[in-house]
């Protein structure tokens, strides 16, 4: 079997909340294979978002290592992490987090501004990404002119546009009605099937988790498969 795209070893995250020490993650070890659609499930406070953040290079663990495509992201400094995230991870949030003053196309273009791509090349990438999520005709719309489901799909396009190997989604359907949720999850599924992306989905909804190829449960910072 090919090397797993994500290798987590003894990952621990403890943070201080006032005077109390909270253990969000307790010595987690996990392998994620390339092309998997992994659903991370668990009740609120179980640490699933924390784990996702560490994998995506948005947070640092207290102890342990996390290798993504062979790179130990826990060892990178701020600057390197920023660059690494830009090229290797696509992040999708529950609250979409699109920039309200930019159009859909401009929002999708944002990650590309950090690369050396020329304007024409960027435009092509954006078009491709928007087509992939079926919103090419909404390129010029502002987020407030889009429905919740459409906003999330723009967010997916933004996550895709740098062609990262890894896509992480933190409760992407939490703010959507069931029809849009279904649509969005379908898009994620097709990304895995057609484009070979690795998807990590955090959710508490079993119906959403069913879209994945594998499910993992977290409870109080510990893995329960």
């Amino acid at each position, binding site marked *: 079997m090919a090397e797993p795209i994500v290798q987590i070893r003894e990952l621990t995250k403890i943070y201080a909340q006032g005077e109390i020490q909270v253990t969000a993650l307790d010595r987690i070890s996990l392998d994620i294979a390339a092309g998997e659609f992994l659903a991370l499930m668990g009740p609120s406070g179980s640490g699933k978002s924390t784990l996702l953040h560490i994998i995506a290079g948005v*947070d640092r663990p207290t102890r342990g290592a996390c290798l993504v495509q062979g790179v130990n992201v826990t060892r990178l400094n701020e600057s390197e992490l920023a660059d690494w995230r830009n*090229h290797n991870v696509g992040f999708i*949030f529950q609250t979409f*987090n699109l*920039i309200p003053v*930019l159009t859909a196309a*401009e929002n999708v273009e*944002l990650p590309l*501004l*950090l690369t050396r791509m020329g304007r024409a090349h960027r435009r092509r990438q954006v078009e491709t990404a928007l087509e992939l999520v079926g919103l090419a005709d909404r390129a010029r719309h502002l987020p407030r002119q889009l429905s919740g489901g459409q906003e999330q799909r723009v967010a997916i396009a933004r996550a895709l546009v740098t062609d990262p190997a890894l896509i992480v989604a933190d409760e992407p359907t939490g703010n959507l009605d069931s029809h849009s949720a279904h649509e969005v999850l379908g898009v994620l599924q097709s990304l895995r099937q057609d484009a070979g992306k690795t998807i990590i989905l955090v959710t508490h909804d079993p119906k959403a988790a069913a879209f994945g190829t594998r499910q993992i449960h977290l409870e109080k910072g510990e893995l329960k498969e």
Partner: protein
Amino acid sequence: MALPLTYNYRNVLVRWRASLATVIGIALVVAVFVLVQSLAVGLEKSAGNTGDPRNLMIVRKGSTAESTSVVTIQQFQILRYWPQIARDESGQPLISADLLCLISQPRIDGTGEANVSVRGLTARGRALRPQVELMAGRWFAPGKREVAVSQKLARRFAHFHAGNAFRTGGHTLTVVGEFDGGNSAFDSEVWMDADEARSLFNREGYSSLLVRATSPEAGREIVARIEADQRLPLLAGPEVKYYGEQTATAGPIKLLGNFLAIAMSIGAVFAAMNTMYASVGSRTREIGALRVLGFRRRTILAAFIVEGALLAAVGGLLGCLLALPLHGVSTGALSLNSFSETVFEFRITPWLAAKGMIFAVVVGVFGSLLPAIRAARLPVITALKSA
């Protein structure tokens, strides 16, 4: 790479209601600054614009103003036929002996009396001052109690228009003409015949002499000769230099302008800070998203500072526009040099407007500095989770 400018200016537009107060606040600060400084500029321009570079002004040594200087008739006679003095077409030396006096006259708007400068000129006096043009009526005739008044002055005082007469020193003077001083100190004067003035104000001698030298070289010779001659307690210098230095009033005006600007801009900085903090506060998730996408802290910092500067620049522009209508408007103030009412214009130069804009941008940058730092330092996770 930096965030595109469209991001910044669209954010400014979108938050226009909240930003409006700050923009107007900065606009007012800039307008006040520009207007007060433009008074000083107008004063200096008027002073700098007075005089002909070929002329020399001769006053008594130690005097600080023409009105307190005394040049005797004998001194006038001595200097008159010096070879370095140019001649006019009829062969007469281009030298004028002037008498400067102050008279107290009522203002046209009823706000009381003010001192007005009266200049008595001898025959060549007008020829030496080509920048002054007759606009209405005629020039005064020698030997008559007639005067010509600057148009700008005529608008500010009662009885100063052509055809009027006014009283001073127990005598009546008739206004026979109005002139335009060419935006110089002469715009604040009343002109009449020098010898009539001497008899009217009971003066033995004159106040100053104005001469046209044949060449710059000759001019220097005149200055040196007067300096060396013990019998002549006089001081000669270029006419433009003399008037250029009559800008004592500009000092307090600039002081006032700077004080107001500093005080008001402190308030403006606080206002800008508040606006930017609110802006940052409502965009925490956006900032978090940008950081996740890979944008650096310093990019976020720069973006918010640019936004603050942009906001302030709009205010600065508005402020300059607010001040602009007053450009060229005439006003009068007590000159600390001549102790008389001096008429000059508000003058907003491009440089002054630029200063106003720079000032606005500095206020904007200072105001957005701390909020921008706050935005840049937001931990990514907190930003993502914030409600």
